[in-house]
């Protein structure tokens, strides 16, 4: 009985893995996407975003680790998938596998819609051709309770804050209230690693990998340790900063827009959103870019490109924002009737991107299955230096060796803003 149950479940699982239910016809587009996977989100994608597309689109969510496998099987077999939606980092390994079609004819579209140059460059994935069209973006920003604004240092403005001003701000608040009001998502599933990789370190050293061992990096860790004296120690339990902000345990926080949005949605009048602070080498930030690509031998490449054009229309970008909380990549005015919380976030995202000293930093590319180990180098350094008080120089030297080991194992070349490398990226 159990054996037949297992067999039955096996058959069901296998059949669920089979590609699109109907054979691909020239007038349909099958859209495989790693975003908007949970049931309700996928439904919203179908009924609110894709329902007005010029070509009938079948939306198929897929788990990120399965994407290359799925596309490979499709390319060798059924040829049903035309359009692919995924994160920048998820597209990167697909290029050497030859699974994506070059999209040079879309370059004009990017310019026409006002997609920023830095995003367009990233979409080349380090090669000559445009490999995907940026579709939507998310990023990480700062949020603060209005209660904290009175403690801002003299002359400091939220949009042009530096890390040292952030420290002063938190110190002022602590002196006045006795509480440590700064918070970071340093919990087990918090995105602290992204803060360290994409915001803090590049602001001091200009990159994520190459200058990991430099004197600039050591200065950064020393500065951050001083900043941490004003951080709420429960930060090592925080994974989503919206909770501590709403409960009032934290007044100033950094996190992903999706992990702050509850705070802005529930109490938009109590919070402000602003770009990340700047360090000596600029205001580094990490855009999380979701793009659209066309499969190499797509059954309906023309239809796929029509859908791309449709999704990049300013109205659709705004609809996507309302539905998914991912932000537009095209030049479009933030609508007035937007949810007030969303408006706050959208403004901060735009400010961060357009800041004169803004330096976009890519999510790590090419690490494959070693991404977690790479992140751990940063969080371990943080643990050792900031939480356990070990000597900065020794820890950085030791962790840099670990980082090189991970890069060698993944054979990953350097990624922006580190200068491109021949072969595996080297820590100087």
């Amino acid at each position, binding site marked *: 009985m159990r054996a037949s149950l297992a067999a039955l479940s096996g058959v069901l699982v296998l059949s669920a893995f089979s590609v699109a239910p109907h054979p691909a016809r020239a007038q349909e587009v099958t859209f495989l996407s790693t975003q908007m996977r949970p049931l309700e989100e996928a439904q919203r994608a179908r009924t609110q975003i894709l329902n007005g597309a010029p070509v009938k689109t079948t939306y198929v969510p897929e788990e990120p680790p399965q994407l290359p496998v799925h596309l490979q099987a499709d390319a060798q077999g059924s040829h049903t998938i035309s359009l692919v939606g995924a994160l920048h980092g998820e597209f990167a390994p697909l290029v050497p596998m030859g699974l994506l079609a070059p999209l040079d004819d879309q370059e004009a579209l990017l310019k026409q819609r006002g997609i920023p140059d830095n995003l367009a460059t990233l979409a080349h994935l380090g090669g000559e051709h445009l490999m995907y069209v940026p579709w939507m973006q998310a990023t990480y920003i700062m949020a603060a309770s209005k209660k904290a604004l009175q403690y801002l240092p003299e002359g400091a403005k939220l949009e042009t804050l530096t890390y040292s001003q952030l420290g002063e701000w938190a110190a002022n608040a602590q002196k006045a209230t006795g509480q440590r009001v700064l918070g970071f998502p340093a919990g087990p599933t918090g995105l602290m690693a992204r803060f360290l990789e994409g915001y803090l370190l590049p602001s001091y050293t200009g990159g994520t990998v190459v200058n990991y061992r430099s004197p600039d990096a050591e200065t950064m860790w020393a500065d951050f340790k001083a900043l941490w004296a004003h951080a709420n120690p*429960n930060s090592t339990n925080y994974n989503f900063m919206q909770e501590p902000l709403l409960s009032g345990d934290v007044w100033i926080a950094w996190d992903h827009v999706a992990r702050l949005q509850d705070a802005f949605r529930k109490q938009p009048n109590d919070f402000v959103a602003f770009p990340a602070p700047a360090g000596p080498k600029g205001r580094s930030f990490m855009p999380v870019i979701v793009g659209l690509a066309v499969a190499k031998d797509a059954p309906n490449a023309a239809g796929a490109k029509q859908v791309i054009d449709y999704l990049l229309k300013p109205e659709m970008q705004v609809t996507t924002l309302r539905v998914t909380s991912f932000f537009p990549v095209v030049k479009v005015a933030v609508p007035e009737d937007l949810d007030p919380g969303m408006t706050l976030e959208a403004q901060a995202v735009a400010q961060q991107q357009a800041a004169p000293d803004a330096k976009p930093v890519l999510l790590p590319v090419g690490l494959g299955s070693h991404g977690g180990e790479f992140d751990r180098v940063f969080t371990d350094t943080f*643990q*050792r230096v900031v939480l356990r008080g070990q000597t900065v120089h020794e820890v950085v030297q030791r962790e840099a060796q670990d980082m090189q080991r991970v890069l060698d194992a993944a054979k990953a070349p350097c990624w922006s803003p580190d200068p491109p490398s021949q072969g595996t990226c080297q820590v100087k």
Partner: protein
Amino acid sequence: MSRTATAPSESPLPLREGVGGRVSRRAALRPYILIAPSLIFLLLLFFIPLVQTIALAFRTSAGAGFGNFGKVWNDLDFFDAVKDTFALVVVAVPVQLALALGMSMMLRHVRRGRDLILWIWSIPLGISDLAAGLVWLAILTDKGYLNSVLFQLGVIPGPQSWLTYETPVVLFCAILTAELWRATAIVFMILVAGVQLVPKEFEEAASVFGATAWQRFCRVTLPLLRPSIQTALILRTVLAFETFAVVLAIGGTNFPVLISQAFIWQNQNQDYGTAAAYAVIVMVVSLTATAVYLVALRPRAGEPA
């Protein structure tokens, strides 16, 4: 279950003496047929995975070796995990044993409401360690009930953090409290059953000869409880090395224990080999503890087994 009292069966009859003196081949096979499903099941779901866990722990990308154990050794939290795991077990288990012994002895003297008290004291049996962790989290969190009481008594000026890396001793006590609350019932249940079997006559004889209550307890009751204590200690210790949800709920990553590290390596890092290495360490430690109990609490000559 009064039937056990009125007509206790002797041990099972040897097969030779079936009804009517005949033993058919089928009858001889019957017990084996009856235990076969459970044996096959345990083979598939216990012994084979056991061997696989050990194999997994020794499998690295470069063939068989100690690579995963190397990662365990280099794990930032490994030494803390060992220290914390043993600290928890070494403190919690004896305290729970003492507490449960006390509760069992107290129960003997209760006449009215015995059933009610037995039920209340056994409620934690049905509570998973995750739920226990959440219960004590609600009490001990910054704005929780403990701090509310302390605040209203004027002991603290405002919400206080007890559960961060800055106050490791307090965090340890918090987790210990949650474990005491939850798992004492397990030890208690086993001891209570054992206490029922201690014949009152021995203790009465001892008191006739002038022994005090404490002497009666130490010299008569405890030795007679040895087998129950042994079982309780083995079960509780094995469970103690396995509990991780209560630790995660209250301490997060501030209080690593061996089994939570196994979980983190499997769940977040997707590294089954290193997770298995941690699991093997937990297995070895549990088995060693069990062996120690079996030897140290062996029935001595002259005592009932």
